[in-house]
């Protein structure tokens, strides 16, 4: 067997097996108000392992329709135990998209606990009794150490699949512990992320490695109220949140008090510092961390523990600092010529190390676009603009593609957005550059708000921003669309106004 696969089996799968022995009668999952013990989980895993064995599947990649049930989580572990990788397919996503993803991976096999039928060329392992005769099984070549492939929407056209292998995930798990979060079998952990999003892997895997219990959110429930009820009813101790989920709870912060919460991670998007301060009152005994990481570098690769003793909370443009890189991760902050910049100078963040993906599935072109070799080391271009302060902490400024040149000045749209948000009670502001007269770049600003007098906004912004950063036009809309991961969908917002 592949050496990395062996390491993964020893450090991840065997650890879960030993927890199953040690904590058999304790709860592993709470799904839709029903508890499942480690023994229950083990039985489900074994049932899926048997089905996978019976079908004698040679392919290394298996599609997984990610329902909110114990079968889906057990399938992931059974797929890993069979030395294979899973590709999550969201049941609420159009079937066409799921079929497109399956077809890109070339796999004939998938698991759906809800028994969907994807057509006669594809086999649902859950319901297949034997391999249908006469079926042409694709002969696909995949690396033998893959754990999962996550397809993210490519801004143009086809979705691209990030391949995460055994070494990536083992390194992540080991580094995660060093970042300051140590769970035990008494922990009760929130899993609020879709399984198509990589934070979900942390949210279920880390608790299982500690003998803790995972509390999930059913797909048909309103996520933010359900998350609150879980935290309050079961006195959860660990939660991972996208800041936009916390923001939905904000009108009700006064009634929230979860003293049991020990650790809270904010991730998946930039965290507004004022929100974090208020949220702390709701989880008074919890440590709060800001984690950053692109899917391509396996879930998280930097972390910042928010000081809650009254000392200075590091932030820039109102966004929490993303802190220090994980153990074993190398990084560079570079200018456009790919030369390292000095401290306190902004540049593009490049990362390298054992958490990095080997590239996009079957897509050499996209892969070569995002990797760069500098002094013999292969770096991933995160597309994020950051700077490092005098205390070696990394500050997040925004996406590189949000950086635009206006009248020769290189500006950060995030800075305009930050100041505009103050005017509209912390709601969303999206700035973008459009071609104006004479083909020059102009800034326009979309505000999640009722219409406000333009002069009033101009007056507010011109106190703090140079004149070339003042938007030339404002658009208003009462609710900004979010994408499936709960982040503001910048492209959808632009579309609202035909930008």
């Amino acid at each position: 067997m592949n050496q990395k696969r062996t390491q993964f089996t020893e450090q991840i799968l065997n650890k879960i097996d030993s927890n199953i022995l040690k904590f058999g009668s304790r709860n592993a999952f709470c799904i839709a108000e029903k508890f499942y013990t480690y023994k229950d989980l083990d039985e489900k895993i074994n049932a899926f392992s048997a089905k996978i064995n019976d079908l004698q599947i040679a392919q290394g990649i298996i599609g997984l329709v990610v329902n909110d049930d114990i079968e889906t989580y057990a399938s992931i572990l059974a797929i890993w135990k069979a030395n294979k990788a899973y590709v999550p397919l969201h049941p609420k996503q159009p079937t066409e998209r799921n079929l497109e993803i399956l077809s890109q991976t070339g796999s004939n096999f998938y698991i759906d606990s809800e028994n969907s039928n994807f057509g006669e060329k594809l086999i649902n392992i859950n319901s297949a009794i034997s391999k249908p005769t006469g079926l042409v099984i694709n002969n696909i070549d995949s690396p033998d150490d893959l754990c999962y492939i996550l397809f993210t929407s490519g801004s143009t056209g086809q979705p691209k699949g990030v391949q995460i292998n055994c070494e990536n995930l083992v390194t992540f798990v080991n580094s995660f512990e060093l970042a300051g979060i140590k769970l035990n079998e008494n922990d009760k952990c929130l899993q609020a992320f879709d399984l198509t999003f990589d934070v979900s892997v942390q949210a279920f895997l880390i608790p299982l490695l500690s003998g803790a219990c995972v509390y999930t959110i059913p797909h048909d429930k309103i996520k933010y109220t359900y998350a609150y009820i879980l935290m309050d009813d079961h006195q959860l101790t660990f939660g991972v949140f996208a800041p936009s989920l916390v923001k939905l709870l904000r009108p009700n912060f006064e009634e929230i008090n979860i003293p049991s919460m020990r650790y809270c991670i904010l991730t998946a998007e930039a965290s507004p510092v004022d929100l974090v301060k208020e949220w702390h009152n709701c989880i008074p005994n919890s440590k709060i961390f800001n984690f950053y990481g692109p899917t391509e570098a396996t879930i998280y690769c930097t972390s910042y523990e928010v000081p809650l003793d009254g000392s200075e909370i590091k932030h820039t443009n109102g966004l929490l600092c993303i802190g220090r890189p994980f153990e074993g991760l190398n990084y560079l902050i570079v200018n456009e010529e790919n030369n390292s910049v000095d401290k306190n100078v902004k540049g593009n963040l490049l990362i390298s190390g054992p958490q990095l993906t080997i590239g996009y599935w079957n897509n050499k072109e996209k892969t070569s676009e995002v990797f760069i070799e500098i002094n013999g080391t292969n770096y991933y271009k995160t597309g994020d603009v950051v700077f490092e302060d005098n205390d070696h902490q990394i500050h997040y400024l925004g996406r590189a593609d949000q950086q635009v040149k206006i009248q020769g000045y290189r500006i950060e749209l995030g800075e305009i957005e930050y100041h505009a948000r103050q005017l509209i009670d912390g709601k969303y502001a999206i700035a973008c550059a459009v071609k104006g007269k004479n083909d020059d770049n102009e800034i326009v600003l979309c505000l999640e708000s009722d219409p406000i007098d333009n002069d009033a906004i101009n007056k507010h912004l011109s106190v703090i921003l140079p004149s070339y950063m003042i938007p030339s036009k404002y658009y208003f809309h009462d609710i900004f669309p979010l994408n499936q991961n709960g982040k503001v969908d910048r492209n959808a917002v632009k579309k609202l106004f035909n930008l």
Partner: protein
Amino acid sequence: MNKTEVISQLTPIFQIVFNNPEIQISENLTANDVKGWNSLTHMILMSNIEESFKIKFSLREINKMQNVGDLISLIESKK
């Protein structure tokens, strides 16, 4: 405040939040029946209703609602 009055005050709020002037409210209506009814629009809907009726919902009350009928009963109980 009776059911009919609650519905007539709720209707324009739904139409604005979901950006759909055609929406008609019935007691059996659920989030699955309305395009764009997700966590975010749900929060906005609740805030707008609270403001319009001058009432406040707890998260627990919001979480219990299964359909618009439950919402109407809750509003009635608070007025």
